[in-house]
Every structure is written in C-alpha cells, then in structure tokens.
C-alpha cells in the first residue's frame, strides 16, 4: 500500500510565471515527499517551461493559451494516463502553500473534491469590492447545490479524488470562470462529495496577477452568468465503472 501522496499528482497551471514557478516546484518536492509534479505551461512567452523543467517537474507545453480550465484538463488526462488517483491544483505564483496539499489529500479519504478555502480562518487573505460580493453570492448558491458549506468557490487550490479525476478529464470546463464555478456545479450535480478545508494564502511571489481592478468590476456579472449557464446545462452522469491504475 503506497502513501496517498505517492498516488497524487500536483498540477501547476502556469502562464508567464518564470519568476516563481521554479521555487514553487522545489517547495512542492521539499514539503510533499513522494509526490509528482506537472507544470502545464499555457503558451507562456517567457522561460516558464525551462525554469520548471530545471526544478525537476514534468512540463506539458500547450501550443497556445487555453486558460486555466484547458490546462487542468491536460493535468487530469496526464493523471489518468499515468495511473495517479488524485490531482491537486496549486497556483504557480506561490500564493498557495504546498504544505496545505497534505491536508487536502487527507480529506480526499472521505470526499471526492476538496476545496482549499482562503477565508475559513487561516491566513490573512482578503478581497474587496465587486469580487468580494460575487464570492458571497456564489458561495451561498453553490453551498446549497453542493450540500456543504463552501466559502471560497473561486479557489484554485483544490484536490480531486479518483471519481472527480475521471469526471473532470472529459468534462472540465474550459470557459472563463468555468474552471472554478462550473466545475463545482458539474461535480455537485454528478453526485460527488464536496468538502472544504481551510488553507492559508500568501501574496504572489513574483509577476502580475491576472485580475486588475477593471477586470474585477466585470467579474460579478460574468461570474453570475457563468453560474446561470452552468445550471442550465444537463447534468453529466458519472461512469461508475471506474478503472483506476496501480
């Protein structure tokens, strides 16, 4: 019986993160013994891929930018091809502390999808304005759908167990905001057990965040729209005959 971490793939979606991705990969290996790490370089124009490779990660380079959703699908497919049971998504800007992965993977014992929540007590991460309101509205609706309390539905720090990996490798949404919001809707409606675990957030280590104030203002509308469309789509049936590799 191997340890759960040895059956876990850490996927780092990365877009132009040459300043931080190397350190994040090294930190993942240092703090999570036995884990494997895949960096999905999403058409970066800087040295992200080579920096990640040097740090010892496997690197999948997409020929052009697909967004976080498309990058995660690559991660899920890779996990299935290589027999990993669990996939943990970690931001490559250093905002997620890899030490938190252990807690997420542990929670996979009882749940299919574990969200690392940034407002659940640990750390001092705050957001203001429209993005904050959007998060409150989204958490209320998605908590009801997932039949569990979710406070941070847009968190990119999340762990997927075997059932979620099988579902997501085919059905992970590639649309903007789909990777966070719609994926939760898909998971909840396919009957996956969802749980949240408090994690600490850190400031990004280098580079620029993809959200600027103008984007944040449009965030509320787009997030709600994404939710409405997600709810309108037919639910996806889970394939119960799950073949999981060694």
């Amino acid at each position, binding site marked *: 019986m191997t340890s759960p971490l040895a059956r876990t793939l850490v996927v780092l979606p990365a877009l132009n993160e040459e300043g931080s991705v190397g350190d994040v990969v090294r930190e993942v290996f240092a703090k999570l013994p036995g884990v494997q790490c895949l960096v*999905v370089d999403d058409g970066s124009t800087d040295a992200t891929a080579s920096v990640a490779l040097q740090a010892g990660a496997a690197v*999948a380079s997409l020929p052009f930018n697909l967004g976080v959703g498309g990058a995660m699908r690559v991660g899920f497919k890779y996990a299935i*091809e290589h027999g990993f049971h669990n996939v943990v998504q970690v931001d490559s800007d250093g905002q997620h502390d890899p030490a938190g992965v252990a807690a997420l993977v542990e929670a996979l014992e009882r749940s299919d999808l574990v969200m690392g929540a940034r407002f659940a007590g640990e750390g001092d991460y705050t957001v203001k304005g429209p993005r904050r309101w959007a998060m409150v509205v989204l958490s209320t609706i998605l908590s009801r759908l997932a039949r569990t309390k979710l406070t941070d539905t847009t968190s990119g720090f999340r762990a997927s167990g075997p059932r979620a990996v099988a579902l997501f490798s085919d059905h992970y949404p590639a649309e903007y905001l789909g990777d966070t919001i719609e994926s939760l809707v898909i998971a909840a409606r396919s009957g996956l057990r969802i749980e949240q675990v408090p994690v600490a957030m850190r400031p990004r280590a280098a580079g620029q965040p993809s959200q600027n104030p103008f984007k944040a203002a449009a965030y509320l509308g787009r997030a709600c729209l994404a939710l409405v469309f997600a709810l309108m789509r037919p639910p996806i049936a889970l394939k119960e005959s799950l073949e999981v590799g060694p």
Partner: protein
Amino acid sequence: MSIASYVLGVIAALITLGVVIEMLRRRQLRERHAVWWLIAGTLALIIGVFPPVLAWSAHLVGVEVPTNLVFFVSIAILFLVSIQHSAELTVLETKTRVLAEEAALQKLRMQELERRIRHMEAPSND
C-alpha cells in the same frame, strides 16, 4: 415594374446561384454550408422570373406589402446562417482545444522517451 428592374432581379439571382455552385464545384464551400445560400438564390430566381409569385405568396401568408415578405425571408435566412456559423465555430474551438491538449501530452511523452533513450545509451552518467 420596368424591364430594367425585371432583368436586374433575374441577373442578381443568377449571379448568386452561379457563385455558390461554382464554389461548390471547386470545393471551396461544403454542401452543408451552401444549403441556405442555394435556397436563398433559388427563391430569388423564382421571384425574379415570375414576379406575381411574390404577390401571391404574400397574400397567402397575409403580408400586406409584398416587399416586406422579401425582407422577412431574407433576414430569417441570414439569421439561420449566422446561428449555424456560431455553432460550427464552437465545435471547431472545442476540437482545436482538444488537439492542443493532446499535442502537449504527446510532446511530453516524447521528451520522456528521448530522455530514457539517452539514459540507456549513456548509462555511465548515472
């Protein structure tokens, strides 16, 4: 209606049909994309050659001004064509995205194999 406008109507319809059929013949247009244009061109030709058909069909569906029926049908056809294009675009985007994902995975696999082969050929740098 003057002779000039009669001739103009017929020629315009013939040119439309001619262009669509020629593009089909040269395989620059696939059948399923050409269907709406063929329907539009044929309708235009029928009405161009037999103008009373327009007045008759307008009367049949209760449209008082026959030209309004022309506008209605034209807009409806253009609308359907754009919807069809948006749908095709979505399908194409999905296919390209899946291809890009596969390409990234294949490349990674190839690099891994190359690394192993290098390792086998030069076991001394262990």
